[in-house]
């Protein structure tokens, strides 16, 4: 009996070393992940040192309305006569802050729901997953708009709205992982040795699902930044705060397109896209590293195809 058990354990051991260096592996195996990480690091560093390198104030008028790019104002000026470059740097600070803060909230909720649900199973699982299901089926943007309207426009509310909405898929993934870990023999042994639930979750489950949580975090940051931009573009954010989304909203409200002021829209759209793509590349690479089944074989034609929505391989739809 004990021999059989020890035969079953290698699967856990194989995962173990593989996972410990997951970031390094991901970066080594996926060139795109390096680019993604570089983009993220670039914008994070830019946000941190932003106030020191920003050429002008991001709130005060320093040039003419919709002044085109010039030697003084590299990216031109927006509809309020504010230097676009300074505004992009400042907007990035806030947008990234919103993205990371909201993701933190959603990771805590999603990780917590997933682990509790997967580990305990039974009625805990049923009730937590029903809540998850409800939130999963409601379109994010619509619910975010409603909540943002009801609570009123402020940065904190936007962070909370996004955080509350974006944890559902994380919870699902973590739950599945927790369920499988729960059944592993060493967990059963640990319990046999008298460890309580808290200890098992803290010492064994959490470290195991950790990398998966990180992969999800990176992917969720992209979604959070996107959602923040969308909310701000729809005018649901405090107009007194500069974010990449409010920059777009201002340009849109004040006829930047028909005025030919591309510099009020294009650079902003570009940085949003860059960060989202960066997060996506890195997150995907980590996910691929952690889950070899997602990996595409070198002969496969699936490389550039969209991932199936449900299921993998044969049963994909």
């Amino acid at each position, binding site marked *: 009996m004990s021999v059989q058990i020890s035969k079953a354990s290698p699967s856990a051991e194989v995962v173990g070393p593989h996972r410990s260096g997951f970031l390094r592996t991901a970066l080594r195996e996926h060139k795109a992940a390096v680019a993604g990480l570089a983009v993220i690091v670039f914008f994070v560093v830019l946000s941190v040192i932003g106030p020191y390198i920003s050429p002008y104030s991001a709130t005060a008028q320093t040039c003419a309305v919709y002044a085109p790019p010039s030697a003084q104002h590299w990216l031109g000026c927006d509809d309020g006569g504010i230097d676009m470059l300074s505004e992009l740097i400042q907007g990035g600070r806030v947008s990234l802050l919103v993205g990371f803060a909201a993701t933190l909230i959603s990771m805590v909720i999603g990780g917590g729901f997933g682990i509790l649900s997967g580990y305990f199973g039974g009625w805990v699982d049923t009730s937590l997953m029903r809540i998850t299901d409800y939130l999963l089926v409601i379109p994010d943007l619509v619910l975010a708009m409603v909540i943002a*309207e009801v609570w009123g426009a402020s940065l904190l509310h936007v962070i909370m709205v996004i955080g509350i909405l974006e944890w559902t898929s994380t919870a699902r993934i973590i739950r599945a992982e927790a369920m499988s870990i729960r059944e592993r023999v060493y967990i059963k042994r640990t319990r046999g040795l008298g460890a309580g639930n808290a200890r098992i979750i803290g010492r064994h489950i959490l470290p195991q699902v950790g990398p998966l949580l990180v992969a999800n975090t990176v992917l969720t940051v992209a979604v959070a930044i996107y959602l923040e931009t969308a909310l701000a573009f729809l005018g649901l954010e405090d107009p007194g705060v500069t974010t990449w989304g409010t920059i777009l909203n201002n340009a849109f409200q004040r*006829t930047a*397109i028909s*005025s030919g002021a591309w510099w009020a829209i294009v650079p902003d759209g570009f940085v949003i896209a860059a960060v989202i793509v960066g997060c996506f590349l890195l997150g995907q690479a980590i996910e691929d590293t952690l889950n070899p089944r997602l990996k595409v074989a070198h002969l496969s034609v699936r490389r550039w195809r969209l991932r199936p929505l449900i299921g993998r391989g044969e049963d994909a739809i």
Partner: protein
Amino acid sequence: MRLRRTFAPCPARSRGPSRLRRSGVAVAVVMALCFSAACDSAATRNVFRLGGTEPIDSMNPFVAVNSSSYSVFENIYPSLVQVDPALKTVPDFAGSWQMSPDGKTWTFHTKPGAKWSDGEPLTAADAAWTFETVIKHQEGPTGSLAGYVAYMESATAPDPNTLVLKYSRPVANVLAQMSGIQILPEHIWARYAVGNGKGLLTFTNPAPVVSGGPFTLVKYAQGRIALLKRNPRYYGPAPHIDGLGLQFFDTDDAMITALKSGRLDGVQSVAPTSVATLKAAGLIVASAAGAAFDDLIVNANPKQAADHRELVNPLVREAFDRAIDRNAIVKTALLGFGRPGASIIPPSTGHWSDPTIKPTPYDPAAANRFLDEAGYRMGPNKIRIANGHPMSYTVIMPASITNGYGARSFQIIQAGFKKIGVQLVPKHMDVSAANEALFAKKYQSFEAAMWGFSLTTDPDGMLSYLTCRSRYSLNDTGYCTKSWDGLYAKQATAMNPAVRQRIVYQMQQAAAREHLYLVLDYPDSIEAHSPSWTDLPMIEGGSFSATSKIPFQTVHRVG
């Protein structure tokens, strides 16, 4: 004259809440602009295609709210009188009129032999029926038009060409009122005015609409397009154009692009940021000081909820007024197309605006002093504490304000208020929700709002918004005092213009003293049209006017 709130600093700036639907418009319009079965350029060449962003909300005058709806009514229905480009009252359906010596009876002589577009006779009886109906149901279905018949006791037509209006007291602005209310065809509408008159609200007045004005409405798709065709039976001078096509856009960008590419002949309410583009594209841009203002409203109800009752304190209101950088708003938000705001009666109304009321200067230091004096100490986070709670206020922002330069104005105000330790938190709402939020709990719960009024030359409308009677309809501050109502009644019946002017000045000073409205700016009305058209005057802030048929009678192609 009482005017409906247009929910926008300029007519047609409000755009409705949705920005997500944009397609499918151009096709519909191309099809709609074809009068005849065969759609060729010859058939549409003499149609003026006008673009706007504030759609017609209803073809029923008892239901409609948006100013573009009223502009359509003016162009399809007769009015007794109208306003000319010099802002003088001139004949419309009534060729001449007299006032009795006591000022209580007005006799209008209407144009003989007039017909509705369906061939039925258009007489003074239609006018009498319209006014009588409004009077009869003014506490109910016709309430939105009741202001036009204030103090009117009866409207009778002793013969088909004579209309006699009897008032319970002399009314100073009868002609201004009569330029704003349109006459409806009795033979169409009478069947809906039976019983309690509720039927008046359910009639959709579908196209083709039986019309008496220079145009008939032949096609209408709610929120999208309206097509007006020249009415061959019109009693007045026939317009030069064959028709007027109206198309409504969700975004300024789409509208401006349509104008630049020749898919429109003219647009109403051009955003200040578009002026340079349009001029560069060779379009004719006209701007005029508009009878409109943008404002920040602060709850003026003395009985408001305790957690923001300090807003009634005159020191607080004055401090707020001084925290507003009006010059920055005019420079950045309006790009110079407007003036800093002062009195609630805009200077464009001429002699009705009190010139001694100047814009409150931007002076955060003084504002801070006032708040210190009031005893509201600076708390943590640099937000002052008033009566135990932080001075942080929710500002209701209707969609009509945030779509356009309103968000920029708000940023400037918000930055100014921050300097005096007051936090402003915007709350976005659509227009009707914003109205309800103001009236909620008998004006006790709202704190502040950003909005605007679009007015006419006669000051009666604006002054009436501050009366107790206007509460829950157009009174947006919750203000209600006996003295104001007394002055309002006095000016309404002052037949001597000089006396009335004095009372109107007195009222403006009272409003300025109490900082009832923090008037931000008087935005210019800006319109643009293609150089192939000419003679399209702007009257009271626009060519597509609710008080005059003249602009679209005179407009014609160049050459």
